[in-house]
């Protein structure tokens, strides 16, 4: 690259080094049929999954499609509010917008009868005692606060049952 020589009449001008051009776009996000069905279920304190007609796996929350087979998952399956911790992380670092008291635990929880874990909080237990295979149950917010959001479940807590066998959740870690 050769040096760029500006015309003499531009000699005294200050070079523009950067500009700011703020942009903001707003969208109305549509969850679609299956996620809407799931959220409506949560508003009734029910956890609804959907089963793939080909591989028979149960997805929760369902997106309306089996990601393996590319077919609609129309068969609805009501799931219990208990499951197994398949993986977890202990959050020890403060961040902007944080609402939880440190340390707290986020976990992937495989509801009994489902084939994909959902993410939620684990509470009512020391963070150091949370472990893979631990059996947990949902704790809901008071009935008058329940709505079509996963925040209707406050958190999951240990049930005190013996740990689940590795084989029951090994495909979901």
């Amino acid at each position, binding site marked *: 690259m050769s040096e760029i020589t500006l015309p003499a009449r531009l000699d005294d001008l200050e070079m523009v080094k950067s500009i700011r*051009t703020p942009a903001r776009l*707003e*969208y109305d996000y549509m*969850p679609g049929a299956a996620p809407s069905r799931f959220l409506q279920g949560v508003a009734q304190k029910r956890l609804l999954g959907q089963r793939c007609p080909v591989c028979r796996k149960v997805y929760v929350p369902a*997106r309306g*499609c089996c*990601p*393996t087979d590319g077919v609609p998952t129309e068969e609805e399956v009501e799931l219990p509010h208990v499951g197994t911790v398949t993986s977890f992380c202990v959050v020890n670092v403060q961040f902007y917008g944080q609402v939880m008291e440190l340390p707290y635990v986020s976990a992937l929880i495989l509801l009994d009868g489902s084939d994909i874990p959902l993410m939620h909080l684990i509470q009512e237990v020391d963070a150091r005692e949370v472990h893979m295979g631990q059996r947990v149950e949902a704790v809901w917010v008071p009935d008058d606060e329940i709505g079509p959001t996963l925040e209707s479940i406050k958190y999951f807590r240990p049930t005190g049952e013996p740990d689940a066998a590795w084989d029951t959740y090994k495909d979901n870690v």
Partner: protein
Amino acid sequence: MRDVAIISLGQTDHARERNDVNDVEMLMPVLADAMKAANITKDRVDFVCSGSSDYLAGQGFSFVTTLDAFGPWPPISESHVDMDGAWALYEAWVKMQSGHADISLIYAYGRSSPGDIRRVMSRQLDPYYTAPLWADPVSLAALQARAGLEAGSFTEEQMAEVVAASRRNAKANPHAQLSGDAEAKALLDEDYFVSPLHKHDCPPITDGAACVIIAAGDVARELSDRPAWIRGFDHRIEPNALGVRDLTTSVSTRQAADKAQVAAGGVDVAEIHAPFSHQELILRDALGLGDDVSINPSGGALAANPIMAAGLIRLGEAAARIGRGEADRALGHATSGVCLQQNLVCVLEGE
């Protein structure tokens, strides 16, 4: 060159707003329709290529989740373009030339309803000079129409005739969003929307999707009674800056048409991707189409404009005319960018 043909098309019933489904739910039946029409199941597909835009979805990497509509397991060979699906079809055609695929599935989708589409589309402009002005595609198309009218390239009457023909043709298209009997004279009496454009000179706001399947050589012959063979395929782009090109003509379309050999043999039917009425007039001229050519029998983008899929649908509709024996040589065209910045021409033939 390896012989490759379009063998099927699936598309949604295009609508102003599909808030009953998410993108995956919108795509699944379209892919299923296209595969059914091609007499294949997904295990026969060697390559998947899609076209969409995160700006429309309002989500980063939105195209990754929509792959679920195909079911990418066992792992598949796939690609994506942030362009109209017509360019995804071009990529798949190149892949087929390499010999690494015999059947490719191309899909594209876009919903314009979640955001303010005129603001969203302004983001395709250069970020320093034009995008900060929020210049929207309707206003920029109006600039182009004004330039064409002042130059004497076309008249407002001709623009109204394009709209009337689109509405009339779309009556036979079950997927169309807008159709009906409209008199050009009555259309001219309507108020201007963004002068010199009336609302009917502009495309409808559409949510929709499409899927096209292409196959090579004897595989295409096995799967289709009358494959639409791709005999010419080219795309060209012009500068993004509006001030450096003549908006009243389309150089890139003319060059692509030359390379695709549109003139050698002529065409019976042309599906032209012209979102605005005057753009069809500019494109007809650039493509060198005579009065004997059937233009946009589907109604074109004025009848339904699922952004990112509307160009792919033009290629699929042109191929469908050949498949049904209604045409022997057809042209499919797709455009992208502001004021016909980028253009693709595909010439299809029956045997």
